[in-house]
């Protein structure tokens, strides 16, 4: 097990290297960072001097090498726009993004679970069909639009929830800021978390439904029913449990997605997270922020994949047997 984890972590370094290399290659098509940093009437000589000082005249491969060397020491430099250490910027915004992603994952998972089971068990009821149709809406309307619709409905027309921001936050020891402990913070997270989670919810719900349909046809379910077990025990103890392996995989990957692609939701709701920082960085060609963000996200994906793999061992006893038994 330990060897497995170590191997995976070593792989993650390779993934991060490749991601940052691709990123560096793409940066040259983004435009000129100097233009975004100085006033329009800055003379050419001063621009050139700045370019030289920032090392932007070096060939790409040298800049990449420098980046990797510094990144290995967790130094991602200063943001061109904010003129603050990139690590500080990301750390400052990380709690907002993580909280948003987790809350939306929880909303998505715990709504999808009963809905998926229900539509799987009673697939001919009109209520199941209504749920499925409704879930199509969640998957086909872009997040951006859903966010704006929510804002107009719940903030402007009904006036129940705030239209932007994170509400009051409390700083916990260790510097983590949380909005989950204040009333305004909880109110503020409802709309963005729902918006962000809607796609995931639909996906998980449909996945559980499909898996349920599959499993319910199998012999051991028929046998369980024949033994006279209660519906509850059959549906949840036997059927649902066996649907969970693919569901966990997908949920895990989707959590990564929620964190990495909270960008749109964050920008619609003015959520002070990393996604907005990244979006601004793209607009202003803030190379240090972009590269650090991409490296961090790729690391995150590797870690989430690793956790998902470990969870397999927990959920599926067959994997444990194979590993220790050394084959049949």
């Amino acid at each position, binding site marked *: 097990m330990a060897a497995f984890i170590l191997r995976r972590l070593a792989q993650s370094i390779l993934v991060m290297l490749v991601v940052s290399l691709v990123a560096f290659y793409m940066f040259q*098509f*983004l*435009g*000129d*960072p100097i*233009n*975004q*940093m*100085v*006033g*329009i*009437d*800055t*003379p*050419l*000589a*001063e621009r050139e*001097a*700045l370019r030289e*000082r*920032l*090392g932007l005249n070096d060939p790409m491969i040298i800049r990449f090498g420098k980046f990797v060397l510094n990144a290995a020491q967790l130094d991602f*430099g*200063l943001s*061109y*726009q*904010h*003129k*603050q*250490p990139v690590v500080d910027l990301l750390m*400052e*915004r990380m709690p907002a993004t993580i909280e948003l992603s987790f809350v939306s994952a929880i909303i998505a998972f715990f709504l999808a679970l009963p809905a998926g089971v229900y539509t799987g068990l009673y697939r001919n009821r009109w209520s199941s069909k209504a749920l499925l149709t409704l879930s199509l809406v969640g998957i086909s309307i872009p997040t951006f639009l859903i966010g*704006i619709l929510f*804002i*107009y409905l719940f*903030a*402007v027309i009904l*006036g129940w929830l*705030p*239209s*932007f*921001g*994170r509400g009051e936050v409390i700083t916990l020891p260790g510097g983590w800021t949380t909005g989950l402990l204040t009333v305004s913070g909880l109110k503020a997270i409802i709309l963005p978390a729902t918006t962000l989670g809607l796609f995931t919810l639909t996906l998980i719900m449909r996945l559980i439904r499909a898996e349920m349909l599959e499993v319910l046809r199998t012999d051991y379910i028929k046998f369980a029913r024949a033994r006279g077990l209660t519906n509850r025990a059959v549906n949840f103890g036997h059927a649902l449990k066996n649907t969970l392996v693919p569901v966990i995989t997908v949920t895990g990957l989707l959590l990564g997605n929620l964190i990495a692609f909270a960008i749109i939701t964050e*920008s*619609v*709701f*003015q959520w*002070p997270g990393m996604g*907005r*920082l990244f979006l*601004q960085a793209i*607009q*202003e*060609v803030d190379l240090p922020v972009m590269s650090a963000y991409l490296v961090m996200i790729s690391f995150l994906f590797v870690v989430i994949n690793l956790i998902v793999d470990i969870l397999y061992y927990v959920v599926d006893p067959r994997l444990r047997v194979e590993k220790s038994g050394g084959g049949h």
Partner: protein
Amino acid sequence: MRKAFTALAVAAAVAASGGMAEAKTFKWGFQTDTSSLDPHAHNVTFTLGFLGNVYEGLVRRDADLQFEPGLAVKWENLEPTRWRFYLRQGVKFHNGNDFNADDVIFSFERTNNEDANLRGRVVGITEVVKVDDHTVDFITEKPNPIIYYEWDTWFMMDKEWSESNGATTPTNLSKGVESFAAHNANGTGAFMIKERQTDVKTVLVPNPNWWDKPQHNLTEVIMTPIGQDATRVAALLSGEVDMVYPVPVQDIDRVNKNDGTSVMVGPELRTIFLYMDLFRDELLYSNVKGKNPFKDLKVRQAMYHAIDIEAIKKKIMRGLADPSAIMISPKLFDRSENFTRLPYDRDKAKALLAEAGYPDGFETRMDCPNDRYVNDEQICQAIVSMLAKVGIKSTLVAEPKAKYFARIAPKGGSDYAFGLLGWTPGSFDSHNVLISLLNTPDQKAGRGLYNYSGYSNARVDELTDLIGSETDKEKRDAMIEEAFKITTDEVATIPLHQQALAWGKRDNIELKQRADNQFRFYYVNVK
């Protein structure tokens, strides 16, 4: 702790002086956050406008952009190359330190630094001399009659505070040294920073010891950046904020129709215009080989006649634009009424093209930013189709500003045939327009840096120098008029319009809108 204490002291002071005045909190949102709190590091209009509430310059501009005394009570040009500024006495920084001549000299040195984006504010000054504690002389290399024209946004910092906190230079990007002043502020202005969470909110309270008489009734100001247009408008409509800007043109109606909110509209100073390649012998991206049609005045006039500026104003800008005949806002040049646009006349345009030898027109390409000016891409689309109707068939390349500006710059290869640009003279003066946009390009001399047309006229260059050192307003205006007359007759560029400002607010808010889009809280009253 200290900040909390100051805040308490302020609250107490306000409560005592106002005879138990009600708390008036004013919340507002802009599309970005202020880049930093450092007044010398970022040459960004919004950042400087925001910091203008906290810091002050030697001079100040009032709501109509006219100069008024700021931290200097008066100033005079003793010799052509020596300006004397008499400083206001008894002014204190927010931390209680006195403002004096040493702070001016310190601020000059801090700005004259390669990490200060505002270095241009003090360029050409060779020395700053302390005459006494409240008098300073600025010695310039060459005579400069408009030395202080951009000093309303050149802010004074406290020498002692900066030295004791390690803020004597702005943040150094290459060495990675951060300046204390990027996150902390100590100015002389009407408001003090009480709390700042980057990109989330900034809270300000009035400065009880401000030298000037406050015209506002605020006890607290909360600024929140709201990036998305739709969200920003929604925040205003739902009453979560009292004021937002900018309001996108397509949302103005909705804000006005909503109960309790309205949009304040006014002209902005930026002039939107077209530049055309006048320097290449063969036009890029064209089917005309071996020559450059734009070099022919008739072709440029034809383009001008082909543009239906009223349609652009009505259909694309929804009335929020002032068509312009010259390259500077009429607010900034008294004689602008003497200029008129070439009329929209499609037949005339076709006739001119035929005379120039292009009876069937020609093909070329138009370059355009799509996230820089109000409805920039839509304006370009309209122009492309208007030109097509007289025979000039162009493909449109619209890109984000970061890409666009890099590509059209001389360093990017001046990769264009013609395109769209906007310009606000930083000094609010025609000299800036002439030297930046209409002088013969010369990077070393700092001339024609944004003259992307590549236009060159010896008389215009000569006039620009004369205007640069002429102190008599009548003579100066006459020369500016002459220069603009030449460039307009020769169609060096095609001016389109000045776009408009749109600030949305709740009806109980009174404020003054400045045409430079800077927002001063000391004009705000909550009723």
